[in-house]
């Protein structure tokens, strides 16, 4: 029988849960094979060397085999030395992981998004402006998981977005000019260009992307967003 073996695949762990007495089931985001579930046998024992590594936000190289949906992890290596995420950036990391789990289908490769994710974690580690880093990743995720967001053109009226006018988002998640619109044309263009320097733009981007993500998730709630808000409220 030929087993599908994969060696030293760059990956991050998104989430892990206990399985039986001493094993784990981990959700991994790999560079070339997308998101997948792996069974890590016997790693929760006292002498296990890989339990410390099988954690989110650590750059890893995973080796595994199997053809079924649940594959068997055979080896874990640290890809490179890393700085752990701390503080608020750590909670943002959980949010990224939940977004990836919600948007990407299993076994659907997204190497570009993997690179974006690595970059985003690096920005979070270096203490970049959290909000802007998150918004940028959300835009990348929407774009690269196949939805695409087009904010610079008003399809309904057939003309480009005017910085001085107001807009709301239509059913197709594209801007429609409206006098009582909640987004300014200026902000929409800035968001499209990933230009988050202005606090007003950032605030509008947050509300816009929240609306878009909720629409795309069809009402499925994001747990980490709720917990994150609760945490920020209490700090």
């Amino acid at each position, binding site marked *: 029988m030929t087993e599908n073996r994969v060696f030293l695949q760059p990956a991050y762990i998104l989430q892990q849960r206990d399985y039986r007495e001493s094993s784990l089931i981990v959700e991994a985001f790999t560079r070339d094979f997308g998101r997948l579930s792996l069974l890590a046998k016997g790693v929760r024992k006292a002498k296990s060397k890989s339990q410390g590594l099988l954690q989110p936000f650590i750059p890893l190289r995973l080796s595994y085999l199997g053809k079924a949906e649940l594959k068997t992890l055979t080896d874990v290596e*640290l890809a490179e030395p890393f*700085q752990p995420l*701390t503080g608020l950036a750590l909670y943002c990391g*959980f949010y990224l*992981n939940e977004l990836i789990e919600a948007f990407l289908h299993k076994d659907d490769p997204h190497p570009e998004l993997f690179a974006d994710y690595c970059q985003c974690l690096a920005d979070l580690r270096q203490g970049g402006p959290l909000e802007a880093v998150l918004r940028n990743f959300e835009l990348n995720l929407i774009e690269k998981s196949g939805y695409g967001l087009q904010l610079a053109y008003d399809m309904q009226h057939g003309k480009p977005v005017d910085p001085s006018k107001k807009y709301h988002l239509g059913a197709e998640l594209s801007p429609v000019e409206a006098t009582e619109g909640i987004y300014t044309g200026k902000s929409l263009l800035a968001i499209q260009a990933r230009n988050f320097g202005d606090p007003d733009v950032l605030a509008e981007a947050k509300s816009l992307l929240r609306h878009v993500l909720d629409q795309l998730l069809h009402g499925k709630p994001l747990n*980490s967003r709720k917990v994150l808000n609760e945490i920020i409220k*209490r*700090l």
Partner: protein
Amino acid sequence: MRDTGLLGRLIQHLRCLPGVGPKTAQRMAFHLLQKDREGARALAETLLQAIDRIGQCSRCRTLTEKPLCDICADPARDKSAVCIVENPSDVWIIEQATVFRGLYFVLHGRLSPLDGIGPGELGLDQLERQLATNGIKELVLATNSTVEGEATAFFIGELAHKHHVQASRIAHGVPMGGELEFIDSGTLLHAFNGRRTI
């Protein structure tokens, strides 16, 4: 006779124990019924009493049959130091292994944003009230050394700072008697980042 009648039900219910599969459950059931009926009765009675009477300590949330657990009720314990742990079993382990003479606070879990477990689910309102009123001077954060354990420790650390209470995190890194050669790279990296002057 499979899965039917009282015997089948007993076997089925024994499987709720961790690490007990169908085969072990079967062996347990037959052992109790054939060889140790007295033991089985005692087990059943104790189990019922335990379920009825054991609840959470009103101060530290560990498991106890009294309103206040033995540790919290002990006047010799240092009430100005509180150790935060994830599970009641961690209290036992720390009591056996260390010389910590303060009190505990049991979270019954850890912050886990992806599972929707936030500060409210961990009794942190109660902890905050204690930080505000109980004259606590030091918090020892002994949550597990996982990403979620770290997230929990950071958040409680921030709460402590807000209430001007000193917070410390237990050290992690190279185990006692451990040789560097056999330590995984993640742990070694952590040990290096957490090095201290001597």
